[in-house]
């Protein structure tokens, strides 16, 4: 059952993606069928809790299992996948086979990630997910900027993934021969710290936490359904999931917990602020993803496993809903600019209402899902450190502001001359399939909190955060336009990508150029020099030695001249001369070896 759960999307996806244009017609239907099957098996494994493994490398197995955390994640991934695939079936009009194939591989890799019990299994799925995201972000490969966006995303996350490779080595070196995720806290010596450091870096990279957040901004170049999946149940969720999974290790080290918690809190606040000033709806939502996942990361750092999981699930439902709405508007009206989108909520009521439910949930308005889960996170944080709690509350203000801005924009009065089609030619319609998953997701985004609960957060704190959310959303209406920035560090995602390019990308290329120059000039040049020296030596033998000996014994000089000529001959490129010469040289060396050997 567990093998089927992960194999079905991976195999079907690979088959679709490599089938080419022939499969375009059937791809949406096949993908919907596969996604439905995945959801059924996900529920099955969530109930049955199976575990399995297969031999992979020497002593290292490929292990999969479903425990409480995995069960929640598996069902979330499968649910969001189905919603996204149905929506995409009504949106994607070209190269469907490749699109749906990659989407299934992407989700399949996430399913392996959240069920993996060993480091190699986790790492394999983790990296495949990254590659699939590259291909999906750059799906419209004729546009160079989209491909570049995919490249930036892949290279950034892979740079962080090196931590996972490091951790894998540390796990084996630290004495955990089986490399099971469950046993990481028991590693010996400094290897435990190395493993923790590696895992934390990899997780922060994947979850687009500071300082890696910029790749998520670029990831917006992908089609709407890709954003919906990438920002909710897969990819960014994987990092936070991993931190929740290895929470015993994080706690055991002593230092990793605070690092993780503060990174999460700082991301929630800083990227929340970034989201507030964006004028592009997808960029706003992307920055808010960093911020909301930041809460889950914060929870992982302070030992709030249940709270963090709840936050992940609630956010997955909410954010997939919001991105599907944004994608629907983008295809219909050809824009994702908040000004251009003024009043669109009134034009398509289903999309508008669903988006409203999602935005209010995102803001943390009671009694919607994220209000519960964020309070659970803040509750755990408050137990740990009041400073963390205060930063968390400040981040909550940001949530209200950015969600409110999006909301007031799309419900605002339609301008007389709407600025549509700034990105692409809109179709002016939202298909039935595009709308179909929205009500379901809206209900989930609104109601999941009742299931997930708010942990042990106090009633007073919950009331406070509720008031903050409502207040911030209300404030966003008058403040909306004043907050928008088109330039400056906040609008530019804190300039993180420029920093990465300036201090990592460009120096690396410069070093490469220098090394290549060195290689050509000195290493290869050295060899050429040696060849030329041989040539010169031959000339010396030919001319000087010749003259010197000439005065003494003419006969010897003849021999020398012959030798000189012979030695110079290989430069004419005649192979057999070289061979003969080499054999002579070899004979000398053999004699030498015999002497040395005897000695």
């Amino acid at each position: 059952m567990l093998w089927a759960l992960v194999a079905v999307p991976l195999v079907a996806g690979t088959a679709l993606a490599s089938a080419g244009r022939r499969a375009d017609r059937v791809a949406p239907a096949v993908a919907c069928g596969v996604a439905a099957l995945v959801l059924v098996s996900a529920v099955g494994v969530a109930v049955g809790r199976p575990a399995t493994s297969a031999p992979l490398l020497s002593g290292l197995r490929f292990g999969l299992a479903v425990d409480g955390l995995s069960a929640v994640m598996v069902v979330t991934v499968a649910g969001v996948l189905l919603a996204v695939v149905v929506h995409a079936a009504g949106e994607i009009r070209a190269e469907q086979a490749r699109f749906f194939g990659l989407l299934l591989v992407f989700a399949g890799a996430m399913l392996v990630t959240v069920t993996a019990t060993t480091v190699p299994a986790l790492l394999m799925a983790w990296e495949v997910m990254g590659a699939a995201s590259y291909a999906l972000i750059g799906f419209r490969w004729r546009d160079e900027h989209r491909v570049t966006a995919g490249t930036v995303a892949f290279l950034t996350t892979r740079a962080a993934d090196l931590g996972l490779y490091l951790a894998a080595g540390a796990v084996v070196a630290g004495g955990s021969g089986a490399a099971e995720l469950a046993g990481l806290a028991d590693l010996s010596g400094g290897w435990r710290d190395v493993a923790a450091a590696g895992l934390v870096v990899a997780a922060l990279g994947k979850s687009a936490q500071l300082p890696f957040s910029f790749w998520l901004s670029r990831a917006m170049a992908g089609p709407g359904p890709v954003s919906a999946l990438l920002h909710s149940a897969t990819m960014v969720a994987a990092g936070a999931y991993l931190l929740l999974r290895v929470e015993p290790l994080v706690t055991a080290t002593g230092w990793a917990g605070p690092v993780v918690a503060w990174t999460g809190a700082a991301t929630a606040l800083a990227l929340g602020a970034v989201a507030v000033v964006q004028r592009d709806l997808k960029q706003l939502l992307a920055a808010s993803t960093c911020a909301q996942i930041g809460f889950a990361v914060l929870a992982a750092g302070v030992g709030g496993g249940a709270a963090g999981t709840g936050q992940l699930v609630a956010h997955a439902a909410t954010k997939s809903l919001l991105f599907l709405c944004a994608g629907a508007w983008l295809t219909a009206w050809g824009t994702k600019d908040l000004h251009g989108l003024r009043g669109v909520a009134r034009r398509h009521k289903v999309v508008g209402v669903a988006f409203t439910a999602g935005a209010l949930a995102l803001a943390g308005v009671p009694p919607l899902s994220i209000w519960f889960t964020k309070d659970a996170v803040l509750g755990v944080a408050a137990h740990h450190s009041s400073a963390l709690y205060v930063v968390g509350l400040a981040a909550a203000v940001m949530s209200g502001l950015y969600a409110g801005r999006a909301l007031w924009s799309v419900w605002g009065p339609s301008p007389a001359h709407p600025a549509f089609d700034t990105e692409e030619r809109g179709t002016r319609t939202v298909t039935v399939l595009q709308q179909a998953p929205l009500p379901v997701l809206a209900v989930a985004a609104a109601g999941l909190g009742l299931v997930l609960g708010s942990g042990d957060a106090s009633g007073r704190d919950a009331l406070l955060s509720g008031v903050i959310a409502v207040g911030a959303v209300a404030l966003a209406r008058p403040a909306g336009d004043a907050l928008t920035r088109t330039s400056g560090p906040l609008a530019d995602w804190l300039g993180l990508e420029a920093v990465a390019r300036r201090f990592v990308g460009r120096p690396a290329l410069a070093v490469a150029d220098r090394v290549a120059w060195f290689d050509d000039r000195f290493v290869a040049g050295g060899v050429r020099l040696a060849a030329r020296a041989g040539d010169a030596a031959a000339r010396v033998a030919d001319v000087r030695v010749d003259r010197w000996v000439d005065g003494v014994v003419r006969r010897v000089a003849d021999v020398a001249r012959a030798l000189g000529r012979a030695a110079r001959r290989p430069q004419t490129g005649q192979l057999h001369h070289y061979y003969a010469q080499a054999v002579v040289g070899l004979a000398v060396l053999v004699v030498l070896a015999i002497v040395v050997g005897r000695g």
Partner: protein
Amino acid sequence: MKVLTAVVFLPLVAAVVLLVAPRTGDRFAHVVWMATSAVELLLVVVLWIGYRPGPSGFDHEVHHRWIPTVDAGYHVGVDGFSLPLVALTTVLFLSCAIYSARETRRVRSYAALFLFLETVCLGVFVALDLVLFFVFFDLSIVGMYFVIAGWGHRDAARAALKFFLYTFLGSLVLLLGFIGLYLASTPHTFDVVALTGQEPLAGKGAVGALVLAALALGLAIKTPVVPFHTWLPPAHTEAPAAGSAILAGILLKMGTYGFVRIVMPTLPGTWRDYAPVFVVLGVVSVVYGALVALAQRDFKRMIAYTSVNHMGYVVLGVGAAGVIASTDEQARDLAVTGAVTQMVSHGLITAALFLLAGVLHERGSTYRMADYRGLAARAPRFAVLTATASFASLGLPGFSGFIAEFQVFTGALGGVPVATGVALLGILITAALFLRAVQGLLLGPFAAPGGRFPDLTTPELAATAPLVVLSAVIGVFPRFLLDVVEPAARALNTVLGG
């Protein structure tokens, strides 16, 4: 058992037949070439299925007297190190045979030369005698010289000569090392298995170090290890596609294979003493090769430099095995198994990439990446294969490269943490350079010299796609390969002691 001898010499027989047969047409020569290569592959599949190593660790062992005065014999056999490389050899030669369907220049000689090379390559991997090994090792250089010089591009003669002189010099140094081993052994022998049992230079200090230096230098040039790699880029840039595929796919492996077959088992103590040197050389090759590759503007040169990078992991793996204490069996097994897996993996992926580079050159007469853009628009099959092979080469899980490099990393980190940490950068740099190549060549709006770029022909597809698929099979189901390699790695590590 005579089957191994038949496998080794069948291509040579076919080559001779081709050359002496009167007035055979090009088409006939090509068919003979393909048929022989296919039979070879089939035979090796049978060998693999029936592979049951005896107590010596070898299967299909044959031992005949040859030059009794120096105790050099015709001693061949396959174990977990050689069988995968023998299989790789037959796979790549079949691919090259299929790929060369459109070769028009002196096809009969070309086919005969490749068949001769196939025998020579197989001979290197099955030889269990130093003299036999050396003969095949040297002949491979001669064969490849003619391939490059006779069928290469414009500057081929120069590049071929450089290749020949450099690697031939290396082989002479190697021979010197072999003679050193011979002289140190009692009774004197060139037999690898006998030498392995003897450890002839145990406790002989400087002499052992000298012999190790000779062997290592000879093999390092062939591998190639930085700074002995400069013959590689010109040879590749000028060689025909099939020649490059064999050169990178098989000939480079002879160097690293020599380490696990000859150097480590016959000089275990010396290897352990000097293992840190190899770790450093390996890491330098990994990072240096990747960086120089990143700076290349020529597709084929770039792939050539990634070979330096990939072979660096092999050297890192075998070096680390010498540093890691014998108490940490798992780490050592991982390092050595990873190194051998990397040989197979690199052979498959790089051969595919070189053949695809050949397609590029065939269509546009240049390897300059800036001259091509958006090829996916006109040649989707070419684009998909090149992109997939690139991802395989950058070590994406699901392909063989990951299985190899992951084992090297996990195995080596405990013993040589700093070196392994630095080597990790290699997979990031290769990711960057391959993504850039994929984006530059394949994606965006279309452009190509002459404005045309026909998609892969059926032979081109049949030659390249199976290599990528095979890499994926190893990447997803590695056990069939690792079950063969791991026992040999364990045996080597037992000999290595420490």
